[in-house]
């Protein structure tokens, strides 16, 4: 049973971690909690559905329930959601940053979240969608350990994206500049870094990763207008657990939340699954408010 909890938890935790990276990066740079971040996942998922439909109905790949059109649509959805995040910043947050404080930005993000979610509901209706109607058959990985091919591919893709993000942050000038601006924006400017360029890169990367998380959630569960909003609490829990502003922390935090949620189902019942993120969040705030990797006040 423990193996099965780990498989289920790591799969869902990897998706949470992907979404939490953008959230923690945005907070680290702009010092505000973006409550609209979950909607990027929703928009990414629905954009991929439109894209997969537009690219045609190819046969599923191997044991997966989806074909190449969804793979291409995932990339297009990531790019479009990155543009959506940039547009939201240009139209709303950038203006408020000039005049407002963090509370104003947080309240504005609530409004943006509502508007983005309502737009999806207006366009697609409240009913759930699926990328495919094919039934995902489980594969027996070991005695008592089962997973669908979709789950395994989603897990691998999420881990690859996390690794790519780690490489970006530690091995590239852009990543180093993002970490520098996050730690000390004034010093970063003195070092020749244009903070506006880094802010744009952060929105784009955060939006793209959230879109990937949304598509992966759509593949393994379903698409609903509220999917991103419901993902928000686990995202915040993961970001805070890992230490707000820390990308490795967000990745690890996502995995911990995912495993805790998966463990809650057999131990306490499925109805308590959603409460687990909240419990972990509260426990972390009580025990170590800076989070696992948090070094800043």
């Amino acid at each position, binding site marked *: 049973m423990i193996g099965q909890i780990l498989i289920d938890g790591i799969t869902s935790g990897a998706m949470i971690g992907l979404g939490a990276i953008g959230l923690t990066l945005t907070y680290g740079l702009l010092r505000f909690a973006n409550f609209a971040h979950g909607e990027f996942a929703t928009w990414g998922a629905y954009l991929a559905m439109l894209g997969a439909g537009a690219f045609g109905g190819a046969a599923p790949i191997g044991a997966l329930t989806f074909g190449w059109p969804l793979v291409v649509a995932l990339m297009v959805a990531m790019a479009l959601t990155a543009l959506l995040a940039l547009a939201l910043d240009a139209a709303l947050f950038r203006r408020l940053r000039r005049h407002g404080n963090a509370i104003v930005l947080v309240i504005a993000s609530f409004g943006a979240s509502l508007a983005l979610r309502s737009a999806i509901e207006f366009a697609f209706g409240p009913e759930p969608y699926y990328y495919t109607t094919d039934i995902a058959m489980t594969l027996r990985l070991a005695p008592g350990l089962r997973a669908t091919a979709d789950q395994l591919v989603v897990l691998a893709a999420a881990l690859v994206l996390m690794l790519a993000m780690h490489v970006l942050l530690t091995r590239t*000038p852009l990543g*180093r*500049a993002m*970490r*520098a601006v996050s*730690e*000390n924006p*004034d*010093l*970063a*400017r*003195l*070092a*020749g*870094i*244009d*903070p506006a360029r880094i802010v744009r890169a952060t929105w784009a990367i955060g939006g793209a990763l959230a879109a990937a998380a949304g598509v992966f959630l759509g593949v393994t569960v379903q698409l609903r207008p509220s999917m991103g909003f419901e993902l928000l609490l686990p995202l915040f829990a993961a970001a805070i657990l890992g230490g707000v502003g820390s990308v490795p922390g967000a990745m690890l935090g996502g995995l911990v939340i995912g495993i805790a949620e998966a463990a809650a189902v057999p131990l306490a019942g499925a109805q308590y699954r959603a409460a687990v993120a909240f419990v972990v969040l509260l426990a972390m705030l009580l025990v170590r408010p800076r989070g696992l990797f948090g*070094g800043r006040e």
Partner: protein
Amino acid sequence: MTRLELRGLVAGYEPGLPIVRGVDLSLAGGEILVLLGPNGAGKSTLAKALAGLVPVAAGTITLDGASLLDVPAHARIRHGLGFVPQTHNIFAALSVAENLAVAAAILPRAARTSRIGAMLAMFPDLAAARRRAAGLLSGGQRQMLAIARALIASPAVLALDEPSAGLSPKLVAMVLAKLREIAVGGVAVLLVEQNARAALAVADRAVILVEGRVAHEGAGAALLDDPHVAALYLGGRAA
């Protein structure tokens, strides 16, 4: 040859509340100019205005004849101005090598490695600690890293805000000796200092700011020997 020139500079954090009130300064290549004055005189504000971190209300700042006023803070290093703030002057979470790489990113790709190598050769302590998180460095090493970060793009002018703050006398002497070495290389050094005696010992010229205005100006050694200046600003009669 004059590299940096400030004329009638008025600057402050709030509109209508100037802290620097009409300062004229000029600085030549290879020269060390020390900016002294009591607390609240506007020394650090002047340095930050020079770096673009504090708004300028009036006056001019020119570097090699070109105005810096419309140049945003992040672009001033490209125009030849390096600045070392007094506090939080390194990226503590980044390694020493990453601190240097961040600053070297504005250079052409082919020049980055050689400039980082030049900085590590100039500051051997940093070379030994290049993989260590900068936040774990000693006070002296931190100042060296901060100076190396500002120097990596080969600026014409290097401004430093109290680089001796919090350092032992031995480390202060080491930092100031390094600044003399940098000036000998042709860089114009503007040094904001509280540690007047140590700074004047390496200064070519010194300016004393009082309430945002230039109160005294002269050769470093002359100010050190001026009993009036010593009594007012150096904590007693100079030895």
